[in-house]
């Protein structure tokens, strides 16, 4: 019997089982407590890690690719939702994005110094903290079917934060390569090359995809076409050591300009998106080790407070001049809290490309990631509800 149990608890069985458990937990949480489902997914992933069932999961290339694909689908849709003309007509949003990125970077860099972290780890931490996780944001807004200024600003600032985070992080990686190996070429490859080519790859597919879509015969086929393209782009990006996340964001932004319409029913890629989202959050949770969790909680709480304060104050400051109310500006800042999924995958992707510091950085920020994984989606949901941009019964 014990042998049978051990045989059953292989990753081939354990993962689908945990995914099912995560799904059911998410449905129960939504029905009983009206909380976002993704909170439950993250908790199940953490449980998977705590039970020791996720050992070696990081080494599973297939799981990592699947997680990247899941996040790439979300980033594609986020890029699709972004209206660059709005950013030009209302430049205060661009100002807010850059300001909160710069201030967050500076604040976290300083806090890391107060906790005695090495400079390179502080740089990694600071660049990651600029990001806002699109996975949690898109799932929560989709569940609530929210609409309004807080929702619009949340999505646009999330995209800006992700873009800035990738730029800063790749810059840190390039700097690290320069410091450790002195190889300028390697430093440039891991920073400039990755950023530029990722954007070009995504944009190129955004130009080509409409031609592929003409072969589709129904609206459902449109969704499948774009999903397949995102999966292809993720595979190509990973093979060429590009950033699949940046490529997917560029793909979505260019596809929008080509005016390929995704209907309301196809948002979040329907059932495929639901399954992959559950997997993504479980995967992220499973990567977070419990060892060192307690020790990093204090750092995590301090960084969380700094991040939230910067987001709230910056958006409060530009609220009135950018056309909304102070209340909605503050709630926008509050809603920008999620971070974990994007940060973890960005770190994981760089580790695969030879960024050794990534392995050492994860335990430092595990406390922050756990806090954000569990509570940040709920905070985003509350912000949207308090803004009146979702019906209470939708929560």
């Amino acid at each position: 019997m014990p042998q049978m149990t051990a045989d059953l608890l292989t990753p081939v069985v354990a993962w689908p089982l945990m995914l099912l458990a995560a799904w059911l937990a998410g449905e129960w949480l939504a029905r009983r407590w009206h909380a976002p489902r993704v909170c439950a997914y993250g908790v199940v992933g953490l449980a998977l890690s705590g039970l020791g069932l996720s050992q070696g999961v990081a080494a599973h290339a297939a799981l990592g690719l699947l997680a990247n694909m899941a996040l790439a689908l979300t980033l594609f849709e986020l890029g699709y939702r972004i209206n660059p003309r709005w950013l030009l007509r209302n430049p205060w949003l661009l100002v807010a994005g850059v300001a909160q990125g710069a201030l967050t970077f500076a604040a976290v860099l300083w806090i890391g110094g107060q906790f005695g972290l090495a400079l390179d780890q502080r740089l990694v931490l600071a660049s990651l903290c600029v990001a806002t996780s699109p996975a949690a944001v898109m799932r929560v807004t989709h569940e609530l079917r929210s609409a309004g200024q807080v929702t619009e600003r949340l999505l646009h600032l999330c995209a800006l934060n992700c873009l800035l985070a990738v730029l800063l992080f790749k810059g840190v990686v390039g700097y690290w390569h320069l410091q450790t190996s002195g190889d300028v070429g390697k430093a440039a490859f891991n920073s400039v090359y990755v950023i530029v080519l990722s954007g070009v790859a995504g944009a190129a597919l955004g130009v080509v995809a409409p031609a592929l879509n003409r072969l589709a015969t129904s609206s459902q086929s449109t969704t499948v076409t774009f999903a397949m393209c995102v999966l292809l782009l993720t595979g190509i990006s990973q093979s060429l050591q590009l950033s699949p996340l940046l490529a997917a964001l560029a793909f979505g932004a260019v596809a929008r300009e080509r005016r390929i319409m995704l209907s309301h029913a196809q948002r979040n890629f329907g059932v495929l998106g639901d399954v992959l989202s559950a997997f993504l959050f479980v995967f992220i949770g499973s990567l977070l080790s419990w060892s060192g969790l307690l020790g990093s909680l204090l750092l995590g709480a301090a960084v969380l407070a700094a991040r939230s304060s910067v987001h709230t104050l910056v958006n409060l400051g530009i609220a009135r001049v950018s056309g909304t109310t102070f209340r909605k500006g503050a709630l926008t800042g509050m809603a920008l809290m999620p971070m974990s999924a994007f940060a973890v995958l960005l770190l994981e992707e760089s580790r695969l490309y030879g960024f050794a510091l990534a392995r050492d950085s994860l335990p430092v920020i595990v406390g922050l990631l756990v806090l954000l994984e569990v509570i940040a989606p709920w905070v985003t949901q509350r912000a949207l509800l308090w803004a009146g941009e979702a019906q209470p019964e939708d929560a």
Partner: protein
Amino acid sequence: MALPPFAHSQALSLGVELELQLVNTVDFDLTSGANDLLELVSRKPFPGTVTPEMTQSMIEIATGIHTRHAGVLGELQAMRDTLVTACERLNIDLCGGGTHPFQRWSDQRVFSKPRFEQISQLYGYLAKQFTVFGQHVHVGCASGDDALFRPALERVRATAAEVDVQSVAGLDQRVAHATQLGEQRGVAGLDGGCDLDHALRHLGRDGAGERFAREQFQQVVGGRREIEVHGADELQFEFNAERQRIRFAEGLQRHVRSPRGGLHPPTAARAA
């Protein structure tokens, strides 16, 4: 319940109300943006009136009272420009007219205002389902009579025109074997109807014509009533299936249209 006093308006003055759609810039589906848009436009004077409507994806604009077309048009254009500028700051698009082709009514949110919430409670989901975006053009009338009389006479004219043909068709048969029915009375009714039609064309310009039309209106109504009474009386005497059949056939024979259109004048014929 007594009606309230009719609000006097300058004759033929104009005002326009227009309901607009608020759509997103992604797939142009309806979006809940009324609160944000109204708050933004309230910061500066608005050239007209803008108010919320039943759901958060609708707004209504209204012009003032104008006497010239150019004034109405100018005010509508100013309101449009102001709203478009505001919408550009909020990542919303404006769309007008009719209904939205693919909106999901269950996603619409009722605007938080007591009147709309009351309607929503009264009609449930229907309040969201019947989301239409109409335009009303209000034309001023000097008095309640003007406001009521015109539509009634229009309807009478239309009705009289139909009854003219029917009355002639029925009259043809009835006169043939209804000796009590005065042919002059029926013709007078028809003549009154024709005169009424002519009079109503000039109603807007001719007070005397209005009085004449009023008289003719009464005559036609009276004539119709008398015709139908006699017809009913006649039918009661004709309650015999065989005689009905023969009568119907004779009526068909007599109803031959002239090459020039219209009907032959009724001819006297003996009932079977």
